[in-house]
């Protein structure tokens, strides 16, 4: 990015580097949340519906992992994906796919734990009826997930918020490569360390506005959907 310009000037001029950074942040975090949801929602639902020895311990573990330090997740994924590591032959370290994987792992516990809680509460309500209608386990999971979709959307937003705001994971796993793996948060860290605090702060404002916009859009979606269902 050009030296000396404020973040707002860069937006106004449609600075290509800034747009690339914003786009990468969104692509990485949205993809991460999608992957985490594909695994985490059924996982949370299964956990809510089944009983097995050690279930309580697993739930406590999952809840605890909601607070996994991003930098630790980044380090763990780095060691896995490094050429010297077990998955090194894929050669994806320091690329966006590695960032997506790492953020998905970071966000998975949040989505699974919140889904479990939501589904468990709803199951208590639906249990008799679904059992009387002879609904099988797959059907139960699908029904509960669909009927709690608004609460689950909140869980997804929580996951997205965590992903787009973190810097530790993507910094280690992506390497903050100019024009390739630089996201908003790593760019802010870089500009701060270069002492260009106004630019860093400006980028920070842009990031916050982005997050608020996405949350507002999700809220609007929820209101519109509820209106459709409730006529």
């Amino acid at each position: 990015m050009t030296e000396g310009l404020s973040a707002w000037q860069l937006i106004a001029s449609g600075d290509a580097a800034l747009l690339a950074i914003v786009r990468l942040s969104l692509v990485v975090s949205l993809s991460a949340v999608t992957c985490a949801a594909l695994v985490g929602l059924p996982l949370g639902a299964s956990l809510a519906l089944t009983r097995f020895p050690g279930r309580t311990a697993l739930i406590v573990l999952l809840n605890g992992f909601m607070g996994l330090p991003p930098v630790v997740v980044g380090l763990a994924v780095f060691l896995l994906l490094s050429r010297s590591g077990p998955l090194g032959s894929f050669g994806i370290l320091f690329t966006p796919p590695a960032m997506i994987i790492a953020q998905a792992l970071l966000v998975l516990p949040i989505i699974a734990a919140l889904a479990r809680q939501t589904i468990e509460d709803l199951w208590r309500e639906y249990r008799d009826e679904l059992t009387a209608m002879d609904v099988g386990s797959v059907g139960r999971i699908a029904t509960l997930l669909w009927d709690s979709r608004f609460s689950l959307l909140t869980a997804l937003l929580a996951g997205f918020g965590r992903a787009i705001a973190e810097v530790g994971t993507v910094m280690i796993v992506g390497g903050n490569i100019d024009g390739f793996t630089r996201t908003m948060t790593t760019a802010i860290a870089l500009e701060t360390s270069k002492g260009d605090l106004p630019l860093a702060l400006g980028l920070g404002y842009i990031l916050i506005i982005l997050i608020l916009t996405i949350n507002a859009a999700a809220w609007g979606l929820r209101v519109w959907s509820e209106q459709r269902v409730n006529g």
Partner: protein
Amino acid sequence: MRAPLSDLPLILDDVSFRAGGAVILDHVSLSIEPGYPTLLVGPNGAGKSSLLRICMGLARPTGGTVTWGGRPESRPLRRAFVFQRPVMLRRSAAANVAYGLRQAGYPRRLRGSRVQELLDRVGLLDYADRAARSLSGGEQQKLALARALARDPELLFLDEPTANLDPAATRSVEEIILGASHSGIKVVMASHDPGQIRRLAGEVLLLVRGSLCERGTAAEFFDSPSTSEAAAFVRGDFVL
């Protein structure tokens, strides 16, 4: 997929049920045969709900056996249950009925029109696209009936379906139930309202403190009860 096997006669042989240290059902034996509605009556706390749930297969007895059409295990493919406080899915009324059809394996192409039929039968056709949870108590009860009938049941269990309803709603629900019975469905219903029992019953079973103490046709029960409990019940006294 229709199961070719019938759940009737439904036979309880010396069934007991304990829960939380208390005896809820105490050596109950009975058999449910096709025909007029069977009304399960008794004071609150007598164990009617538990008995219905065991007949449905939602609970297992702690003693004794249950057989459906002679079989000790039977998936509820041809049974349906209407709870006292039914739970509607967070969807429209029509979607709730469609859900019942889908779970019962009703062919997809025909579901739409069948949903309309069922809603019409319970008088809720105008509410098809309303959110089910925004309906009144009586309307939800009727919707639950529609959803249960969607299963094309052979056996329909109802646990005090009109206990929380006003007289007008009670009358319409009773009409639907009678209609179902006339179309060949065996209705087994819990009630503690003598008027309702008179209106609906073919057969009456009196349950007091977990034991079956009287059994007979409606006429026998009301005109010549053989036990003191039954007599007290018919008089409207407390049955202790």
